[in-house]
């Protein structure tokens, strides 16, 4: 059985006098021990809200959550706040996008790291400090004893992200959720951080849920990839399968619209027309239909089902998938 299995997760934001906004609309995926699963999509596709829902970090009021998210047999979505607090940090941990705003600016790094050790592992005083120093050392922060006394603003961006990772892995969590962990960083620093995450997964067998918009990062890191569009997974496959045969027109278009470092130059890109604002509700049909080059009237007759038009395990939510015969040169 999978460590985390999410079934038909939906998150709807409600406010009086306004239309309900459905950010996540039936997302299902599973993460196994030692596996890296990617959630990819553009802004507004619901990838971050998914992670917040799993961690129980969404506000209680004004949010309606549906579906199931089983972590080790327990449903995270209905768990009591007290129990969830025990789980967060020790079993589940999260790395956020912006390392500066996720650290408390007026508290030294050391206290922020030892806080977790005190709460979950019962370490105190000198012992906790020693452990914190070894954690910082492990994620590649030099001179950890001195760094523990420093404030977040004294660290560089890459170093801050390392500190956040140290805090996330402090209690050897079984599932790590990384929400755009390298988006705020430069490419050379990004390469360092990705290498570090890979190491953690390989050595500790931690499961990693990687949330990103960068298909390049996904290609190098994830075992399984879920492409989200407007709150639903439109395509799920192993990374080699997905990148070799993108089958949903959205995934196909996305890969065609990225300028690649290793591709021949001089050809114009094939962008997807319109923007994410041009969508229809999933209940009425395929949300991507207004931007799709392959759409037919069939697309507007209710939510398309997940099918496996190519190979087993390669799921696509489309009635007119991009198949070899119809493939346009990318």
């Amino acid at each position, binding site marked *: 059985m999978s460590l985390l299995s999410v079934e038909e997760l939906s998150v709807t934001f409600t406010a009086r006098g306004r239309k309900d906004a459905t950010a996540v609309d039936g997302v299902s995926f599973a993460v196994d021990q030692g596996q890296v699963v990617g959630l990819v999509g553009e802004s507004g596709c619901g990838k971050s809200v998914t992670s917040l829902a799993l961690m129980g970090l969404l506000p209680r009021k004004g949010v309606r959550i549906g579906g199931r998210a089983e972590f080790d047999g327990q449903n995270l979505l209905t768990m009591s706040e007290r129990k969830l607090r025990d789980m967060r940090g020790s079993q589940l941990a999260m790395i956020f996008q912006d390392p500066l705003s996720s650290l408390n600016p007026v508290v030294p790094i050391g206290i922020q790291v030892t806080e977790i050790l005190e709460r979950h592992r019962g370490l105190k005083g000198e012992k906790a400090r020693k452990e914190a120093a070894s954690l910082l050392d492990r994620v590649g922060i030099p001179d950890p004893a001195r760094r523990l006394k420093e404030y977040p603003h004294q660290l560089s961006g890459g170093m801050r992200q390392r500190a956040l990772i140290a805090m996330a892995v402090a209690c050897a969590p079984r599932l790590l959720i990384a929400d755009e962990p390298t988006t705020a960083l430069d490419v*050379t620093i990004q390469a*360092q951080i990705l290498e570090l995450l890979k190491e953690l997964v390989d050595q500790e067998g931690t499961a990693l849920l990687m949330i990103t918009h960068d298909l*390049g990062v996904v*290609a190098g890191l994830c075992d399984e990839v879920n492409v989200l569009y407007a709150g639903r997974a439109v395509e799920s496959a192993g990374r080699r399968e997905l990148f070799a045969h993108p089958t949903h027109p959205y995934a196909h278009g996305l890969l065609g619209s990225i*300028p690649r470092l290793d591709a021949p130059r001089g050809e114009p890109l094939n962008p997807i027309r319109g923007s994410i604002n041009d969508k229809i509700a999933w209940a009425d049909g395929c949300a991507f239909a207004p931007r799709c080059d392959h759409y037919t009237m069939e697309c507007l007759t209710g939510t398309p089902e997940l099918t496996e038009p190519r190979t087993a395990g390669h799921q696509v939510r489309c009635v007119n998938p991009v198949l070899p015969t119809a493939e346009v040169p990318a």
Partner: protein
Amino acid sequence: MSLLELDDVKVHFPVKKGLFFDRTVGHVYAVDGVSLSIEAGQTYGLVGESGCGKTTLGRAVLRLNDITDGGVVFDGTDLAKLPSEEMRAFRRRLQMVFQDPLGSLNPRQNIESILSEGMAAHGIGKDQTERREKIKDILAKVGLPSNALSRYPHEFSGGQRQRIGIARALVLEPDVIICDEPVSALDVSVQAQVINLLEELQESLGLTYLVIAHDLAVVRHISDVIGVMYLGGLVEEAPSDALYAKPRHPYTKALMSAVPVPDPEVEDRRERILLHGDLPSPANPPAGCRFHTRCPWVQETKCATERPPLLDTGDGHKVACHFTAEIEAGTVKQTLATGIEAVTGTETVAAEAVEVSEGETETEVPAADAPEKAPVTVPAQADADAKEKAAAAEETGAKASDATDVEKETADATDEASGATEKAEGSPKA
């Protein structure tokens, strides 16, 4: 002759201290001696990581930053020495497209007002009716409906806002457009639309672009010539294809190997050169070659003491490295530890570091028994052994970067390069 020529441009921001007396305690060397030339109708791409001075350089061309030294020759006129009144007239011919499409549009002006303001200031069009016709024409060119005129920036999506930003530059009929991160705030599917638009406009209007971006794939797609900046200076300049086919400067090599490619086959195969530590502070740049503190190929001689000039190695491929030929011939090996020890930038420390790390190379098992290229070149899917080596290297590397902060005062003011630049620009508080 080139349309735009930069000759040894320097932009230094003073770092001030004290509440009443604005004592200058140092400088942030944001741009420190950049020379380049852009031909008419060409696209020049400027890449580099945050804090390397690429944005400052772009702004300096328009004199939005004061130029400390050097010349910016546009169509025969040195902009750096023009009185500001005359400079203002020249700005019609040199326009800029900014990174943040929402932040660079006034939320309380409608699109017509935003676009016609510049035209009125430069006396384009007799009256508003004539200007409106022209604006409609440009809006159609950038792919916006003409009913956009009476709408406000918040009513548009990110990609459309960037189109408005491009239209604002185009209405003045400029010769040169400086695009500062034109697509980095956009989603990939929309990004491609804007890139295609920029290319179409260049073709139909004969524009010259200076594109500043951190995304190498985007820059490569759009540029004819690319310059790679590191810590205020150009380290390599070459025609786009040549640069990507054969990067010659160690920094360019590392940068290109760090860019993720959306293809698992490529990702698994390729070798990654991991750089260690962070960018040194531009307030206290290393002596000699700016990159020697992080360079995997750093040598004992020259690198720490002598700043390499940007020299043409043939075919317009310019490199600023003392050992380009030797690295390519393989006579200069990657030096694992030496590449990452010295960061402070003083010659003595650098020399010491070289000695220390030499010792390490001898004793350290992984470095000693590793094949020529192994130490820091880690294949994406390396065996556990190689990963350990990388981890070891990472540690030492990070330790080295630590030394940057030795000077607390400077480090405080310039913790992050970009931050420092902003502070210095903004207020004397910094």
